[in-house]
C-alpha cells in the first residue's frame, strides 16, 4: 500500500485506465500542460501525450458535447469541469443530451463517459465556486453519480466509473484533495453502487457522503465519549444507490441521521429519509434527522462558511439532542 493524497489518487486512477485502454481520452481546461488547477492531473500529459490528454478552451458546452459525440462513436472520454458550479453552463449537454440520448433512441447509443468535477465548499471561494451539487445530478434519470471520501475510493471508484458503460458524474470534494490515505498497490477497481460501513454501533446510524464522511467519523468518536455509539455509513455513490446497506444499518439502530454538504432542499438525504420511512418505518425508534448546510448560497468569509457547512460540533450536538 502506498500513501497518496486524494489528488494523486485521482491522477493515478486516470493513468491506470489510460494505460489499460487506448480508447480512454482526457480533456478539460488547464488539465494537460498545467496538470489541473487543483493539480489532480499532474503528469498525464507527459505520460500519454497531447493526442490523449488535451487542454480545451473555456467552453463547457463544447467540452461535454465533444465527450458525448466521442463516446457515442467509440471513445471513452473523461472530461474535467473545473468547478462543479460550472456544470450550470453545460447543464443542457448533461441533463438533456448525455442523460437522455440512450433512452430516447431506445438503446441505439451508449455513452461511456466520465465528467469529473471539483465540488463543495471550505475554500472561501464564495457561492459560485463552492456548491455541493451532487443532488442536481441525482435528480436526472440517466446519470450515475459518485462522490468518494478517501484516496483509495477516489482511485477505485474513478476506475470503475471509466469502465462503466454509462455516463458518470464524478464529484471530487475540493476540501479532500489534500488528504492522505493508503491506496492499494497495483490495479485497483472498485464497484459503483456500493456503500461502505465505516464503523459499527448500536445507538444510531449516521449516513454521510464525501467531505462529510470524515466529519461524521470525528463526530462518532466524540459521541462515543458521551455514551452514544454510532454506525457511520459512507454512501460513496448516489446513483446507483446502495439502499440495501443503508436500510440494513438503519434497522440495526432504529435512528437515522444524514450529514449533507448540500443546501437543505431536495438534498440526497431527503431521498434516503423517504426510502427509510417507507421501507423500514417499523424499525425506527425516533424521527429521521437531516444535518445539512442551511438553504442559502454558501458565504465566502471563513467565519461564515465554516459555520454554514455541517461541522463536527453541529453533528455531535444534533445527534445528542435528538437521542436524549
Amino acid at each position, binding site marked *: 500500500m502506498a500513501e497518496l493524497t486524494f489528488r494523486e489518487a485521482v491522477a493515478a486512477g486516470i493513468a491506470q485506465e489510460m494505460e489499460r485502454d487506448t480508447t480512454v*481520452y482526457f480533456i478539460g481546461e488547464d488539465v494537460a500542460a498545467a496538470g489541473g488547477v487543483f493539480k489532480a492531473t499532474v503528469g498525464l500529459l507527459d505520460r500519454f501525450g497531447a*493526442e*490523449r490528454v*488535451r487542454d*480545451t*478552451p473555456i*467552453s463547457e*458546452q*463544447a*467540452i*461535454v*458535447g*465533444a*465527450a*458525448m*459525440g*466521442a*463516446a*457515442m*462513436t*467509440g*471513445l471513452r*472520454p473523461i472530461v474535467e469541469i473545473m468547478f462543479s458550479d460550472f456544470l450550470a453552463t453545460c447543464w*443542457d*449537454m448533461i441533463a*438533456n*443530451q448525455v442523460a437522455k*440520448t*440512450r*433512452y*430516447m*433512441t*431506445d*438503446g*441505439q*447509443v*451508449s455513452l*461511456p463517459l466520465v465528467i469529473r468535477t471539483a465540488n463543495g465548499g471550505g475554500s472561501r471561494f464564495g457561492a459560485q465556486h463552492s456548491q455541493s451539487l451532487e443532488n442536481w445530478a441525482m435528480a436526472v*434519470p*440517466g446519470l450515475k453519480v459518485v462522490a468518494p471520501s478517501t484516496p483509495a475510493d477516489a482511485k477505485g471508484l474513478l476506475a470503475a466509473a471509466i469502465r462503466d*458503460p*454509462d455516463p458518470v458524474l464524478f464529484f471530487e470534494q475540493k476540501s479532500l484533495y489534500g488528504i492522505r490515505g493508503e491506496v492499494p498497490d497495483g490495479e485497483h477497481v472498485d464497484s459503483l*453502487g456500493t456503500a461502505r460501513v465505516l464503523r459499527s454501533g448500536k445507538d444510531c446510524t449516521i449516513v454521510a457522503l464525501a467531505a462529510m464522511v470524515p466529519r461524521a467519523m470525528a463526530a462518532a468518536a466524540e459521541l462515543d465519549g458521551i455514551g452514544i455509539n454510532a454506525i457511520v455509513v459512507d454512501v460513496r455513490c448516489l*446513483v*446507483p*444507490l*446502495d*439502499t*440495501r446497506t443503508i436500510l440494513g444499518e438503519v434497522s440495526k439502530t432504529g435512528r437515522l441521521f444524514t450529514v449533507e454538504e448540500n443546501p437543505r432542499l431536495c438534498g440526497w438525504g431527503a431521498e434516503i429519509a423517504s*426510502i427509510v420511512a417507507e421501507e423500514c418505518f417499523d424499525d425506527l425508534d425516533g424521527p429521521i434527522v437531516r444535518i445539512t448546510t442551511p438553504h442559502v448560497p454558501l458565504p465566502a468569509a471563513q467565519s461564515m462558511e465554516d459555520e454554514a457547512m455541517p461541522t463536527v460540533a453541529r453533528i455531535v450536538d444534533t445527534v445528542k439532542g435528538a437521542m436524549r
Partner: protein
Amino acid sequence: MKARTNEASAAVASIDEKTRLRLYQVMVELRDFEQRAYELFVENLIRGTSHLALGQEAIAAGCAVAMRNDDYTFCTYRGHGHTLARGASMAAAIGELLGRSNGMLHGKGGSMHLTDVTHGAMGSYAIVGAHLPIAAGAAWSAQARKSGQVAVCFFGDGTTNIGAFHEALNLAVVWKLPVVFVCENNRYMEYTPIESVTAVAHPAADRAAAYGLEPILVDGNDADVMYETAARTIGHARSGGGPSLVEALTYRHGGHSRGDPASYRPKEEVSDWLSRDPVKQYRQRLASTGIDDGTLTKIEEASRRKVDVATDEARKAPPARIEDIESQVWSDGGSAWRN
C-alpha cells in the same frame, strides 16, 4: 456576398447522371414523406409536435448523397429528411411519428429525435445548438481513431445566435476536426425574421471569418450546388483540412411547426420562394439535360408507393409498448437506480 449558383461552379456541371437521378430520387422521397406526415397530422394521427422540412429537401439530399456510408449525420428537430436521406426506414420513421411499436425509437423519442445509427444518422437534437459540439465530438473520435469519417451537422439560422454554435466552431477549428457545419438559412428563427435578431446579414457565412474559415454562401434550393458544396467540404475534412461552415439559403414551405400557419410571412416572399421549389426546378433541369420523362415519372411513382407501403405498415403496428417505459436508461437495458 453573393450565393454561389449553379452557373458559378464548373464542378457542378460535371455531376454524372446517376448521381443526379439519385439526388432527384432522395428529394422526391423526402417531399412525399413530409407531405404524408402533414396529412397524418390533419387526420390527427400524430400527437405532439412536428417540424416539416418541405422546401428544404435539396440540402438534405445534396449532402447525404455526397457522404460516405460510415459518415455521421447530426441534425435538428426538423430532421425527418436528414435521417431518411441516410437510408433509414420510412416505415420506422412514420411509426415513430405515430407512436407505434414499429417506430424507429419504439416510441421513446418521437418526431424530434429520429435516429438510426446503423445508417450514420446519429440523432435529431431538439435543444437548439446542442448537437454542434456533439458533432464536433464525433469528428474528434474519427480523428483519434483515424477512421477517415466525417461528421456533417445541420442546423437552422436561429442556431447561429446561441453559444454552443460558437463553442463548437472554435473547438473544431482549434482541433482541426473533420466536421462540416451546414446552416440551413430558411430566413426565419421560428416565427421571427432572422435579420431582425442577428447582427450580420448572413448569420453563418458572415461569422465564418471570426473562426478563420472561408465564408461559404450557397443556393440551398439547388441540389447540384448542395452536392458539389458537400463533396468539396467533406473531401476537405476527410483529407485533414479541418472543418467548414456552409450557409445554404432556403425556405420552409410551411410554418415552424405543426401549429404555425406562418401568416407572418409576406405573400410575395412566399410565392417567390415557391417558384424556386427545389424539387420542381431540379426536375426541369433534369428534363432539359435530356433525361426522359418516363425515367423521372418512374422515380416519382416508386416514391409514392414507398411512402404508401410505409404508412400502411405503421398504421397497422400496435401502440408503443408500455413494457418499454423503464427500459434502456442504462446499457444493461434497464433503469435500476438502487438495489
